[in-house]
């Protein structure tokens, strides 16, 4: 039984939020497909941090379980995302996402 | 399955399926035969219809359908629907035969007509508001196909316009139907889609939006749908296009039956379901009808295209019917119902005649014709006769309806009748101008000299139409007498206060056990 440090309790979710915001920002503005994927990972990690915080604060293990699943899924998503990016690279020789806008209107 | 009403709907549908499988020529014959049988069925219904049975619908059929919402497949016939059923069944073989000459995709055309037949019969016979709506909208589909596939050059535009404008109105009606339906549920704790039962809804008198009460909104939603279909004055612009572009058979049905669905709807829904709102708004609608009478005639007078002229004349004629409905006097009511039939015969006949001319000359421009009385005397004879019916020459059917409408309207609203009477004059103007342009005068155009007179098939159609035109002019009592008691009841229930009416008459739900509100 260790008391929660006040900084941890007060600032942890700030870090999560910052990370999330950074991820989201990068997600929206970066044109390199791979970096965009990384930004998604950043956002997921921010969520993980938040979930761990919640779970630990309440001494409740479900959040941790959730985090484990999220990590797994994130890995899978990264794999699929990279596969898709690879596919695109094969077609166009670039991973610049704005090159792919033939579908519109 | 021994219900006649059901067969009036089923028969054409089954025939449509059969026709889809048969060779084209056979399918045409089968279709005509089937519609003739349909007509006989309608006659049988007419025969079995008991005028004195005052309590609502007769030959009722009720099959549970969506039980969860108490929606039934319910059919019935009363004095309002009987004439229109007869009309639609009568017009159908005529329309089919009028389209006999169409050779491209003739089988599909036949099927469209048959489906239309079923849908129209269903519209007039449905006593369940949901079923009514289904048929009401379903009519549009075969009709736009008929216009859009077999029409003239601008057919697609006309078909889309026809569909979208009429669909627009009916969608708002749908919302009103929902509203009625849920209100009934809120008030009586049970659902019903029975049209008569929905009349028991008590509306609050508080305004809900823009100072109008719920009842008025419901009324407006219904009225919009029906007035577009009629079509009432500012909502009429789809009609000339649809009529002009449609093939002859389509025009005939459109004019003869489809427009009547609007006036029928006004009578069937707007008046009984929302009586107070009707009382409040009927002057506006009547004024629009009056404007339509006059305006339709004026515009018809200016038309170059024969079909457009007849179309605008429909606007004018239907104006009479609307005014008659709004006047809500027993004479005008009978007149309006009769006039629906009359207009169907005369305008249907006119479209047939224009179509015959179009078949021969491939133009409908009035200026292309002239002097045809010399070349095709029989055609001229029928044109004059049916034109006379259209402009209400007494002794023919058009007069009886118009006369009763005006007579009845004058009893409640002398001013309306006075304005409407001017329509009689204008009708003569544009009809006579049309006659002059087509059959009188010298034969100016060489091509007109080789025009052939009507063939036996056309002569038969025109003859039958003329026969009924004269018949209804001379002996309208055969129809009026059948529907009179029913209309009298209708009138007494819907004019003034309902309490006295219910004292005079047995309550509506005493005959149909299920009709009334259930606890």
């Amino acid at each position: 039984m260790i008391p929660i440090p006040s900084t941890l309790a007060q600032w942890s979710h700030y870090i999560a939020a910052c990370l999330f915001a950074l991820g989201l920002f990068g997600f929206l503005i970066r044109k390199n497909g791979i970096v965009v994927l990384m930004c998604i990972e950043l956002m997921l990690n921010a969520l993980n941090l938040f979930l761990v915080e919640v779970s630990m604060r309440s001494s409740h293990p479900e959040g941790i379980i959730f985090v484990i699943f999220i990590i797994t899924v994130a890995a899978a998503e990264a794999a699929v995302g990279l596969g898709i990016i690879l596919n695109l690279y094969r077609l166009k020789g670039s991973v610049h996402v704005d090159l792919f806008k033939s579908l519109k209107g | 399955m021994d219900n006649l009403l059901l067969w009036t709907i089923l028969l054409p549908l089954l025939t449509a399926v059969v026709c889809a499988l048969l060779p084209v020529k056979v399918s045409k014959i089968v279709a005509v035969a089937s519609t003739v049988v349909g007509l006989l069925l309608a006659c049988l219904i007419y025969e079995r219809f008991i005028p004195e049975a005052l309590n609502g619908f007769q030959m009722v059929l009720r099959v549970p359908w969506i039980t969860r919402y108490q929606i039934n497949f319910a059919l019935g016939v009363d004095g309002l629907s009987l004439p229109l059923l007869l009309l639609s069944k009568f017009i159908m073989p005529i329309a089919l035969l009028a389209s006999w000459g169409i050779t491209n995709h003739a089988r599909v055309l036949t099927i469209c007509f048959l489906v239309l037949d079923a849908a129209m019969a269903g519209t007039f016979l449905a006593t369940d508001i949901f079923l009514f709506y289904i048929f009401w909208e379903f009519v549009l589909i075969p009709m736009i196909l008929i216009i859009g596939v077999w029409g003239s050059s601008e057919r697609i535009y006309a078909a889309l316009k026809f569909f979208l404008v009429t669909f627009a109105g009916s969608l708002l009606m749908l919302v009103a139907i929902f509203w009625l339906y849920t209100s009934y549920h809120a008030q009586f704790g049970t659902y019903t889609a029975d049209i008569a039962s929905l009349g028991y809804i008590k509306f609050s008198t508080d305004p809900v939006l823009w100072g109008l009460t719920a009842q008025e909104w419901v009324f407006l939603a219904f009225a919009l749908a029906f007035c577009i279909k009629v079509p009432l004055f500012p909502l009429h612009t789809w009609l000339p296009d649809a009529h002009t572009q449609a093939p002859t058979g389509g025009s005939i049905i459109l004019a003869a039956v489809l427009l009547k669905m609007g006036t029928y709807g006004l009578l069937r829904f707007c008046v009984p379901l929302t009586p107070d709102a009707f009382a409040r708004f009927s002057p506006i609608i009547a004024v629009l009808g009056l404007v339509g009478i006059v305006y339709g005639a004026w515009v018809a007078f200016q038309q170059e295209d024969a079909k457009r002229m007849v179309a605008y004349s429909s606007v004018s004629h239907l104006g009479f019917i609307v005014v008659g409905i709004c006047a809500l006097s027993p004479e005008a009511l009978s007149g309006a119902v009769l006039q629906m039939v009359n207009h169907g015969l005369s305008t249907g006949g006119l479209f047939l005649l224009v179509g015959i001319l179009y078949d021969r000359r491939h133009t409908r421009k009035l200026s292309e014709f002239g002097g045809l009385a010399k070349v095709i005397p029989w055609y001229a004879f029928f044109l004059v006769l049916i034109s006379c019916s259209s402009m209400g020459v007494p002794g023919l059917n058009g007069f009886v309806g118009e006369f009763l409408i005006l007579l009845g309207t004058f009893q409640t609203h002398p001013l309306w009748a006075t304005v409407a009477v001017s329509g009689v004059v204008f009708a003569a103007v544009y009809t006579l101008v049309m006659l002059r342009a087509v059959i009188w005068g010298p034969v100016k155009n060489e091509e007109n000299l080789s025009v052939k007179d009507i063939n036996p098939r056309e002569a038969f159609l025109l003859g039958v139409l003329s026969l009924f035109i004269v018949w209804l002019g001379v002996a309208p009592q055969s129809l009026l007498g059948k529907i009179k008691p029913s209309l009298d009841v209708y009138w007494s229930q819907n004019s003034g206060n309902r309490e006295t009416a219910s004292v005079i008459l047995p309550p509506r739900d005493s005959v149909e056990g299920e009709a009334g509100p259930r606890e």
Partner: protein
Amino acid sequence: MRDGLFIAFGILTILGGLGVVVARHAIFSAFSMVIAFFGLSALYVLWGSNFIAMLQILIYTGAIVVLFVFVVMLLDLKKESSLDTGSGLAVMLSGATVWFFSLLILRAMNRGSYFASEKVLVSQDMRVISHLLFTKYLWPFEILSLFLLALIIGVCVLARPDSKEGPHK
């Protein structure tokens, strides 16, 4: 001590995240991501969730980032001359959106009430978690296995080089 560590690793994490977003070359983004993940796992340790911290290092840093780096290397992307962010307007709009978005989230996190707020930490060690995984969360766990099977097959489909082979050849 814990506070100091927390602040340090927190800053490290955020800097790592920033690096991911602003690095010009993808490979630097990947390396920044390693820094961020490392900081995060440290934070997990501080929160007392050693198991997650371990997973973070193993899976994220060890597998995912490696995957990224591998792909970046494979694709041989040239170093971009400027940050590939699109027009300034887009950046500003996105920035404003993100700022407002995170503001809302953050304030929600600040004001929202957590379901329990005993100021204590209970160690969630591996035993507890694995027990849960194999009893209460066995069903999701099995689904996860199917998920991974699907993933393997899917990635196979994606990554397989163009085969001119039709299904019925």
